[in-house]
């Protein structure tokens, strides 16, 4: 994109208010006006630098932003935030708001976050307001792009939004994934927060395949393993509200390179992650040990790091019978019960 210094100078000296109008009128005329005079004025003085077709406008403006001075960038982002807060009051608001948010996310303009959240709440999540299809489309796009931006303010907002009954359930997946990107170890909690939406989505054939496919690329096996016991897989009522999550995880991990060599074994009562080649034996047993940790405090003395795995291994071997008994007690199994596939069998097979 070739832009003259004189054009940049004008942009670098625009005030925040000027930028706000520049965005509001520019996006309006660029998208909808057939009047060439309007087009001549839209995004002046760079209207001739921008292409009407083939390249999204927000991307072209993001490129312009990168060429501005620090002061120019500050006015640009603050003006964009102002335009976003005023946009929905204008007739063309629904058509232009999402484009402004795309631009804001592309250049990571933090200042837009405080201004877009009230619009989401007012026009999308307010249970007393109904919205039409274009409004749904706009805010669905906005949630989509914002969910890929890992920012503390947004993450705080997602924590609230994900369990709002008025949130369209389809948006729960991108928000869940956004939260997982930020704090992967808390995924069981996020799953809990979104449970009413996910319960609805589970009636749909596509769910949860795509969400879990994305999940396994952003949360690695180690994190999942450490946090599996926080899932609601066993509770006093013998219900397993999160078992669907593990089942899909089991399917998706087989095809994911981040999880190469990792098998999940679902026993019905217990989820084990088993590491195969190319992981070495210490990792293999450390994994099993970690699963035990999560069920009892008995083994807290054993550290999880690889450096003292030998010690852990011996500890594990010596305590094998106790562990097995505890597991049986824990799950209320009698001694005649066929060992749960996985753990007890492995314990018996350990050789020092």
């Amino acid at each position, binding site marked *: 994109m070739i832009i003259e210094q004189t054009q940049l100078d004008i942009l670098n000296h625009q005030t925040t208010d000027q930028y706000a109008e520049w965005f509001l009128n520019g996006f309006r005329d660029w998208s909808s006006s057939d009047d060439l005079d309007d087009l001549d004025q839209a995004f002046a003085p760079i209207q001739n630098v921008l292409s009407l077709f083939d390249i999204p406008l927000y991307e072209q403006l993001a490129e312009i932003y990168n060429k501005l001075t620090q002061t120019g960038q500050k006015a640009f982002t603050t003006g964009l935030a102002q335009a976003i807060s005023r946009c929905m009051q204008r007739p063309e608001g629904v058509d232009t708001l999402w484009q402004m948010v795309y631009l804001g996310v592309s250049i990571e303009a933090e200042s837009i976050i405080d201004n877009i959240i009230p619009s989401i709440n007012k026009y999308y999540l307010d249970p007393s307001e109904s919205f039409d299809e274009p409004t749904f489309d706009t805010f669905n796009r906005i949630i989509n792009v914002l969910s*890929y931006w890992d920012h503390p303010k947004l993450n705080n907002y997602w924590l609230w939004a994900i369990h709002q009954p008025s949130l369209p359930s389809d948006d729960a997946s991108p928000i869940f994934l956004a939260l997982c990107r930020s704090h992967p170890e808390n995924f069981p909690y996020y799953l809990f927060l979104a449970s009413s939406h996910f319960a609805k989505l589970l009636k749909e054939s596509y769910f949860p395949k795509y969400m879990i496919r994305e999940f396994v690329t952003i949360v690695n096996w180690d994190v999942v393993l450490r946090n599996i016991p926080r899932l609601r897989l066993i509770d006093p009522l013998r219900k397993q509200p999160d078992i669907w999550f593990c089942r899909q995880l089991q399917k998706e991990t087989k095809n994911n390179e981040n999880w190469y060599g990792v098998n999940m074994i679902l026993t019905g009562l217990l989820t084990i992650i088993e590491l195969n080649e190319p992981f070495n034996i210490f990792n293999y047993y450390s994994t099993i040990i970690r699963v035990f940790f999560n069920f009892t405090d008995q083994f807290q003395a054993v550290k999880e790091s690889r450096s003292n795995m030998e010690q852990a291994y011996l500890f594990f071997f010596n305590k094998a019978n106790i562990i097995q008994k505890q597991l049986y007690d824990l799950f209320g199994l009698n001694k005649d019960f066929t060992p749960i596939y996985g753990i007890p069998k492995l314990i018996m097979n350990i050789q020092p």
Partner: protein
Amino acid sequence: MMLETLEESCSGAIVLANIKQALANGDIPPKDVEKFLKACQDHLTKQNKEFSVNDVLNVMEKKIKNKEFTLKGKKLKTSKDISTIMHWSFAVEMMNPTIRSRHTIPAIQNKVQPKHYQNFVEAANESNFFSKKVCIGDKKRGFFWATIRDDVNALRTECEKNGVNFANRIRDILGLIHFIPKACLVEIQIEAKSVKKMTLPTFIEAGKHLRFKARSSSSTSDFGQTCDLGKTCPPNENNDHHGLPEAVVECISLEQPHRLQLKIVGCVKTLPEGRTNMDDPKEQESHDCHFLKLIAGSYEGSLAEAIKKVININ
């Protein structure tokens, strides 16, 4: 005046060379060329100020928002299925929002990763993949660019076989100079029977796109032919810079179902034409001048005057 202004730089002269060639070939009726150029000139005159080559090119591009000027080239017929290549963001904009959410597809391209391709392709198999209000092509200008599907398929296979980045190659062979690194592209394959109107592209549809090349007089095909950016640079005497057949097609509304197939092209990794950057006016001018030489050959007279001999414009 407008035509003389275009003659001031290689970028403007590229447009003139294409006008002259289209008229010489009879690719478009002279009255339609005249009408378009007069509309552009009137707009520039109304502004009551001096105008530059860029001003003219921009008015030409903006004028094609008015559908009365486009699709005036020779009508084309084909029994072959066609393909169009588009930017990821535009393809995702066409999607039904619910499908987009459900398949966790990012709406903006700088968040796209190869893992999303599979989701996209699977989403495309859903019967309600497209939002019903959309059409293939830009609604504003009322058309889209297309090439022959089988040629794209063959190129894809060849690239896979030779380990060549398909996105780079398709960008080059179709002359899509505006797709620079990080641009992720999608192909839509369309059955021939879905096409209502298809014409030979001319300088009018090209707007300010500076790698459009009018069909050569020796061409035996009714279709236009792209200029392969992979063959135009480095500058040499090689005249074999032909790419693939091209046409412009009237927008296809998706209110009625059509059998379409979507394929991922991938993301462009390199700049076109062996460039070092796209922001340097000197480098741009040098490439434009080289391209002008390729399409206008050794023509030494005034291109503006040559055009004025055929159409009535000041």
